[in-house]
């Protein structure tokens, strides 16, 4: 395991090694609490209860579940109830105040959920966005009498800008660094509030923050304020829901779950970070603005680093990444402390204890990761034709004669410290060709794929895709230029469903003709069907990939690669762990792709598969090219026997 003192290194997936690894516990020793087994039982039971609850909900009449599941419907219903309550409640109602506060915190939590939950970036700076919203609104409303429809957009804009500022370095930082930088941001904003005291009132703060509906007009009533707060909450909830279900939201989750796999699907983690931070911060500032109105008076004490931690607790407790979670977290953590308010200190012990306990018992929060969304699996690629099937292996077709090679590696070297994984390797492949790459472990096969797909740059030599130099290009960009790949251990996204995976793949499609796109969809659908996944069934599409068998995961990963309509497809030991029937399906898919004009490179140990499928075999040994030739000659080649089956002098 790399020992790194570099907190800025983003936490990417497991190290890229030549040997497929299953999960290995660190030392077989259960480090957790003595009650660990019990804790896990509780967590397990809660998960089961949650699933049972969902199953019950699913048993209700279809129209009812559809209605309940539609955010516009259920959120609007709640809004109507809240508005009615506001209009009929007395103006001094403490409960109404509490409801507004809970709503504001829910808005803030929904905001933090976007970079934190969906994006997986642990930011402790949400309090800073909130503070910016509080103070910008306080200054504009109190000192300058701005109406609410002007102050709120300003808060949004200020928050957005702050989010971009925080997100810019965040894109390159690992979790630790991000946590610290965001903490620093909160302290800096706190200082700035005290520093610019002419503007902010310093330690005395700002009073008379009242909501107006137009310049110079009278103050709006308390009921109007409540309705505005609830309405903004409704809008935020919908926006958040929509974002989670959109391609952007899926990209954020993918890049959180499996950064390397996401890059291979064309997702830029940097762009995701910037975007989620900006949006999340804007929403946080919006919540702060509303808080300013609700509190009427604010001082620096109302915004503190503790607030950042509170928002974090709400998100984590409710279920980071889920659509309902932040709201649940906000409700519980606003209401429960108010009930405990008579017991000093207990609140805080509960918060702190909750954080510690949660990580041990229920790390995914009450709502867990939430239910999958239902995107169109094939996006704009169209729908699979009903009778699409994979061609037989002996069907014709082969490399397009005379075409220029689409992928060219020239003199490529790659070292890791003292270890020379690749030395001066030349490799090329033409459209429609299928090339097998073989060699024992440690020969550099996977390193070759990694260099070609941009996972690391070559130490020497060049890589060209379709004539363009991609030696130093980032992996997600290479994916966007038409190079797709799979991994020894499928790098799928554990919290997403099958349909969501396909949607991610089809949102990043290389330039291609309509006919090729249709073929891609057909091939992908046929592949999934051969893996036992009938994608015509909506239930299948909603299955979380955690429930799939190894072979099915592989088919899913290959199907995703196919949906990119790639010019070049790199398959890294795709047959490992597959049954004979599954292997045949894979071979037929590779053949189909070659017929469609894709160049396919397949790294394998199964020499039989190689012999049946490929047009040409390349043998690597200790990082150099040992032999190259047609599969028929493979057995006879002395060099191959030396490398592969071992030799004793």
């Amino acid at each position: 395991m790399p020992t790194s003192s570099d907190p800025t290194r983003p936490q990417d997936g497991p190290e890229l090694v030549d040997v497929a690894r299953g999960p290995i516990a660190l030392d077989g020793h259960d480090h957790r609490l003595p009650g660990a087994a019990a804790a896990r039982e509780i967590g397990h039971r809660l998960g089961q209860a949650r699933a049972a609850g969902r199953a019950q909900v699913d048993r209700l009449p279809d129209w009812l579940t559809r209605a309940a599941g539609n955010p516009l419907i259920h959120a609007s219903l709640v809004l109507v109830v809240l508005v009615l309550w506001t209009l009929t409640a007395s103006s001094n109602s403490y409960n109404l105040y509490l409801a507004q506060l809970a709503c504001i915190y829910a808005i803030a939590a929904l905001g933090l959920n976007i970079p934190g939950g969906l994006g997986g970036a642990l930011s402790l700076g949400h309090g800073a966005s909130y503070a910016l919203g509080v103070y910008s609104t306080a200054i504009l409303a109190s000192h300058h009498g701005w109406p609410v429809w002007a102050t709120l957009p300003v808060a949004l804009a200020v928050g957005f800008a702050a989010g971009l500022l925080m997100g810019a370095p965040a894109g390159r930082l690992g979790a630790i660094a991000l946590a610290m930088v965001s903490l620093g941001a909160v302290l800096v904003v706190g200082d700035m509030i005290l520093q610019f005291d002419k503007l902010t009132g310093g330690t005395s703060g700002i009073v008379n923050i009242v909501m107006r509906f137009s310049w110079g007009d009278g103050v709006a009533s308390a009921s109007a304020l409540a309705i505005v707060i609830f309405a903004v909450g409704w809008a935020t909830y919908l926006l958040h829901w929509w974002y989670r279900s959109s391609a952007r939201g899926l990209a954020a989750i993918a890049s959180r779950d499996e950064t390397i796999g996401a890059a291979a699907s064309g997702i830029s983690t940097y762009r995701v970070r910037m975007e989620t931070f900006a949006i999340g911060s804007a929403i946080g500032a919006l919540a702060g603005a509303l808080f300013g109105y609700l509190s009427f008076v604010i001082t620096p004490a109302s915004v503190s680093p503790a607030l950042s931690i509170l928002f974090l607790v709400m998100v984590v407790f409710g279920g980071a990444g889920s659509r309902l979670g932040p709201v649940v977290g906000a409700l519980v953590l606003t209401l429960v402390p108010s009930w405990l308010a008579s017991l000093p200190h207990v609140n805080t012990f509960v918060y702190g204890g909750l954080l510690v306990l949660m990580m041990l018992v229920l790390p995914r929060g009450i709502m867990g990761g939430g239910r999958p969304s239902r995107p169109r699996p094939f996006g704009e690629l169209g729908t699979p034709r009903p009778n699409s099937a994979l061609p037989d292996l002996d069907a014709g077709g082969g490399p397009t004669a005379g075409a220029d090679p689409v992928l060219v590696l020239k003199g490529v070297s790659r070292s890791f410290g003292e270890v020379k994984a690749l030395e001066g390797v030349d490799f090329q492949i033409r459209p429609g060709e299928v090339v097998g790459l073989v060699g024992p472990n440690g020969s550099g096969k996977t390193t070759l794929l990694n260099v070609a797909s941009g996972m690391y740059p070559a130490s020497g030599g060049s890589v060209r895709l379709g004539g363009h130099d991609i030696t130093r290009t980032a992996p997600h960009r290479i994916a966007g230029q038409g190079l797709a790949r799979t991994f020894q251990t499928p790098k799928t996204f554990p919290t997403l469903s099958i349909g969501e995976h396909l949607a991610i793949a089809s949102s990043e499609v290389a330039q291609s003709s309509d006919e090729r796109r249709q073929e891609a969809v057909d091939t992908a659908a046929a592949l999934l069907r051969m893996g036992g996944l009938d994608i015509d069934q909506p239930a299948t599409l909603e299955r979380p990939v955690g429930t799939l068998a190894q072979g099915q995961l592989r088919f899913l990963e290959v199907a995703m690669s196919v949906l990119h309509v790639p010019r070049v497809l790199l398959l890294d030991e795709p047959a490992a762990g597959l049954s004979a029937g599954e292997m045949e399906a894979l071979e037929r898919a590779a053949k189909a792709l070659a017929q469609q004009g894709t160049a396919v490179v397949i790294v394998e140990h199964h020499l039989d598969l190689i012999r049946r499928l490929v047009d040409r075999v390349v043998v690597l040994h200790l990082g150099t090219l040992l032999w190259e030739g047609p599969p028929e000659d493979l057995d006879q080649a002395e060099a191959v026997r030396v490398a592969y089956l071992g030799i004793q002098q």
Partner: protein
Amino acid sequence: MPATTTSGLRVRDLHVNYGAVHAVAGVSLSVEPGRCVGLVGANGAGKSSTLHAIGGLIPCGRGSVIALGDRSLQRVTAPQRARLRLGHVLEGRHVFSDLSVAQNLHVGALAAARPRRAAAVAKALEVLPELHDVLKRPAGTLSGGQQQMVAIGRALAGDPEVLMLDEPTNGLAPILVDRVIHIVREVCAQGIGVLLVEQRLEVAQAAADELHVLQHGRIVHTTTGDDPGLAAIVHAAYLN
């Protein structure tokens, strides 16, 4: 078969599951002191999982029996197993890059009983004299082959009764592969039992007294000495 000896490693009915995947499905083998037992198989056949389970790094199924000498290792943690004289050279070496070679050996010797430490380190250096030249260099600056030697030496310094080696020839040039085979034979000659996992058949054949072929988590063939049909069996195992 002699009456049950209570020395060496005994494994009966080992099962390892990764969730639904049955990686090791009932493997039984024994390693007596001074003998080398080889385990070959294709990628994914379960070789490494077997070693990890015996070493205690991953949990094994409840019915599995793992014993060293007359001591059951079932409830023993991985570091404790090393201190009970079960040496384990991991795949990928895992040397301590910032420590010198000498320090790597020294820390390996901490697993041995105090009075035996110095002797164990001396024995390790006897088997691996090439380490003398690089004793002061940080292990991270050495080549892959040298690091492999350090890893083996470190495990030997722990005064093991049985030594497990996980694909030690991975990525090594042929001349170093020979060296490893030689080292394995010498270790056995010193009375230490060796369990050798290898991907390359000919390496395993040269080093081991007894060879098991693993396929899909099960031992499908066992052989000692000359076995003309072996190549064909292994070939078949690798291709399926």
